[in-house]
C-alpha cells in the first residue's frame, strides 16, 4: 500500500464565503474524510488557513498571503493509503473542493524514503 497526498487547489483564495456556506463545506469535507477513514485508508491531513499566510520570494522578499501575484492557492491536504494512483484518484473525486469551478485536487505519490524513490 502506497501513500498519496491529495492537495486541494483553489482557483481564487480571495473569494469570501458566507459562514453558512463554510459550515456546509466543512460538514461535506468531514464526511468525505470520514468515509476514507472508515475504509482504513486515511493517514493524515489538515487544512491550511489563509490567516497569517506569507510567501517568501526570491531574495527573501516576503509578501502577505499566498494569493499575491498568483491566482491559485492551496487550501489543505490529506494523505491517504491506496494501492494505486487510480484508487487515490477515486478518493480525490469525492472531495467537496471540486464543487468550486476552476478548483482542482492534485494527487501525488509520497516518496517512501526507503531507497526506492
Amino acid at each position, binding site marked *: 500500500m502506497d501513500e498519496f497526498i491529495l492537495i486541494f487547489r483553489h482557483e481564487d483564495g480571495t473569494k469570501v464565503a458566507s459562514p453558512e456556506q463554510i459550515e456546509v463545506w466543512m460538514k461535506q469535507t*468531514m*464526511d468525505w474524510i*470520514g468515509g476514507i*477513514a*472508515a475504509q*482504513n485508508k486515511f493517514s493524515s491531513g489538515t487544512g491550511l488557513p489563509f490567516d497569517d499566510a506569507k510567501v517568501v520570494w526570491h531574495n527573501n522578499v516576503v509578501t502577505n498571503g499566498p494569493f499575491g501575484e498568483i491566482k491559485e492557492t492551496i487550501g489543505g491536504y490529506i494523505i491517504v493509503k491506496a494501492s494505486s494512483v487510480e484508487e487515490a484518484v477515486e478518493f480525490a473525486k469525492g472531495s467537496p473542493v471540486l464543487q468550486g469551478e476552476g478548483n482542482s485536487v492534485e494527487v501525488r505519490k509520497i516518496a517512501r524514503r526507503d531507497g526506492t524513490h
Partner: protein
Amino acid sequence: MEKQELIPHLFRTEYRKIVAVLCRRFGFDQIEIAEDIASDTFLAAAQTWSFNGIPPNATAWLYNVAKNKARNHLHCNTIFESKISPEIKIITSEFHELDIDLSPQNINDSQLQMMFAICHPAISPESQIGLSLRILCGFGIDEIAEAFLTNKETVNKRLFRAKEKIRNEKLKIELPGPAEINDRLENVLTTIYLLFSEGYYSVSQNQTLRKDLCFEAMRLCNMLIENSSTNKPQVNALLSLMCFHASRFEARLDKNGEHILYDDQDVSLWNADLISKGAYFLKCATTGNILSKYHIEASIAYWSTQRNDTKEKWENVLQLYNRLLQIAYSPIAALNRTFALSKANSKAEAIMEAEKLRLTDNQFYFTLLGELYTGIDHEKAKCNFQMALSIARTPADKQVIQKKLDQLQ
C-alpha cells in the same frame, strides 16, 4: 454475610491487595510465592472460620495471617536467606523486624505500581489482561478461562509464560517517571478497556462474572484518577465511557439471558446514577488539550444516553465517528459510522459508503447492509441478513438476525 458468600467476596477484594503488597516487597520475580501466600491465607480462613466462626474484623484477620505467613517465608526460605536477605536486612534493620506494610496507602500504591508493571510493553496484550484478571482482580483460573472462552490449561500456560517474561526482563514494580508515564498509561488504559469489553461484550453466560469484570475495570480506572500523577484527561475520558456503557447493563438482557437491542431497551432500567457519573468524568476529561480516542468514544456514548432520534444527535454522532476513525480505525467504528451516516444524511448515501467497506468476514457488516436495504430493496435486505446469519457464531447473535429476517417476511 454468611461464610460461604463472605470468603469468595473477600477473595475478590483482598487477594489482589495482599499479592500486590507482597510482590512489591519480594520483587516481581517472586510473584508465585506472593500468590501462594495469599492463597494459603484464604485456605486458612476457610478452615479456621468453619470451626471458630467469622472473626469480628475479617479483613484484619486476613492481613495478620498473610503478614505472619510472609514473615515465616522470609525467615525459612534458604535461597532467600543466602541471596536476597542480606540486602533486605539492610533496608529493614531500622524497623527491627521484617515488616509487611498492609496499610491502605501502601495497598493502593502497590496496586497502582502493579498495574504499570503488568502492562509493560514486553508482555503480550492478552497476557496483560490475563495477569490483570488474576493479580489485580483476584479472578480464579476457571473464571479467566470462562471470560476468554478457553480452557484452564491455555490460561495457565499463558500466565506462566507472562511470569517467565517478567523474571527474564527483570521488570520492576514501580510507577514510571513523569516523562514515560503518558506512554505507559496508554497500555494501562488499553488493558482496562479490554477488561471492561471482555465483560460487556462477553458471550459467557455467567452474568455475575461479566458484571464483575466491568466493575473491576472501572475500579482500576478510578484508582488511576485518585492518584495525582496518573489523573490525566484520557483516564477520566475512559472512566466516563465505561460509566455510560455500564449504565445500560440491566437493560441489555431479558429474563432468559437473551440480548435486547438498544432500540427495544426499557429506558427506566438504565442507571441514572452511572449516567450522571459519566457526564461528570467527561467534564473532568476536558481540562487539557489532549483529545484521545476515549474522549471521542465517551462523547459518542453520551449521545447513546439520549434516546430521542434528533437530527442534532445523529449529526454529532456522525462527526464524532468521522474523527474517531481518523485517530483509531476499527471495523466496528466504521460500521457504526455508516449507521450514523444513514440517520444524519440518507440511507442511499450510507448504502454507497457501506458497500465500499467490504468487511465480508464480519456478520455485523451484512446485518448493517440488511438494515439499510430494509424498505428500499426487499431482496437485497434478505440476502444480506442471510449472509449475516450464515457467519454469526453465537446463538444470541443468530437469534437477533433471525428476528430481523422474520420481520421482513
